[in-house]
């Protein structure tokens, strides 16, 4: 039983082992939690598709330490993000801010969806009307032919 518990604990510990060094952590758990959330928001500029929370890069480590310093000095979360953006630009934010030059990014997909919906609506409206015009009554000739075919079938 002890072995199973130990194994389970080790397995859990392994999943929790991220790039954050024990030595980097702050003593205050609420500050540390804020630091973790902020590091998840910031891009590691060396590896680019990882947050600095996940990255082992040297610069990511430096930035994590810096975040904790800013928080300890009394900065609010937006102030810390602002501090990073001033140096590294919006690219450091994993979630791009909604502003004039990112409108296409944020709203482009909805615009395409709306265009598609408009096209589909127009198409459906037109094809909904079309069959009624096509349903002209049969001509005398067609009536005769129909009767003939039906008679053949029965006979």
């Amino acid at each position: 039983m002890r072995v199973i518990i130990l194994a389970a604990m080790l397995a859990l510990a392994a999943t929790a082992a991220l790039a954050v060094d024990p030595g980097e952590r702050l003593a205050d758990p609420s500050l540390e939690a804020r630091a973790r959330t902020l590091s998840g928001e910031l891009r590691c500029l060396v590896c680019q598709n990882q947050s600095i929370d996940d990255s082992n890069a040297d610069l990511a480590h430096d930035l994590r330490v810096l975040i904790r310093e800013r928080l300890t000095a009394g900065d609010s979360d937006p102030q810390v993000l602002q501090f990073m953006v001033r140096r590294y630009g919006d690219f450091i934010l994993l979630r791009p801010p909604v502003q004039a030059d990112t409108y296409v990014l944020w709203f482009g997909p909805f615009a395409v969806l709306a265009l598609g919906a408009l096209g589909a609506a127009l198409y459906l409206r037109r094809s909904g009307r079309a069959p009624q015009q096509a349903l002209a009554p049969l001509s005398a000739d067609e009536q005769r032919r129909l009767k003939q075919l039906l008679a053949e079938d029965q006979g």
Partner: protein
Amino acid sequence: MRRLIYLLPAVAFVALAAYFFVSLTRDPSVLPSAMINQPTPAFALAGLGDQPGLVRDEFAGQVVLINFFASWCIPCRTEHPLLMNLSRELSVPLYGIDYKDKPEDAARFLGELGDPYRRIGADREGRVGIDFGVYGVPETYVIDKTGRIRLRHVGPLTPADVARELAPLVKALQRS
């Protein structure tokens, strides 16, 4: 005429494909700097060993180049021969910031390859680097007479970079 509307998706596709195709030739590891046209961040760094250090305010009124380097940085070795002639070629002072390095390693590096810098500041913690928005060495900055950053070059400088970007900019800034 109405038929033309069916060409619209094809036109949109071609436009997007062309845009993506051009983007393929861009190097995604080269990032734009947020510090362009911003004042140079203040710093006061100690020198290597007992050499004099580097303070931002001493640049005031002149165009200067600042090169972030490190002895552990392989591309810096590639760049080094070019730096040796750069400051004479462009007649502009070149200052070095030794990024996250041990001063004795940096001294050995420069002893081996030559020292192209007018003066060097040792940024042992990399904090000045972060203030500049450095995300890898080497990086080279052009500072104008008013102390604003006008250009950042990421990665080792090549003769083509010097001829195309650096030299024309430095000349223009020196004239202004």
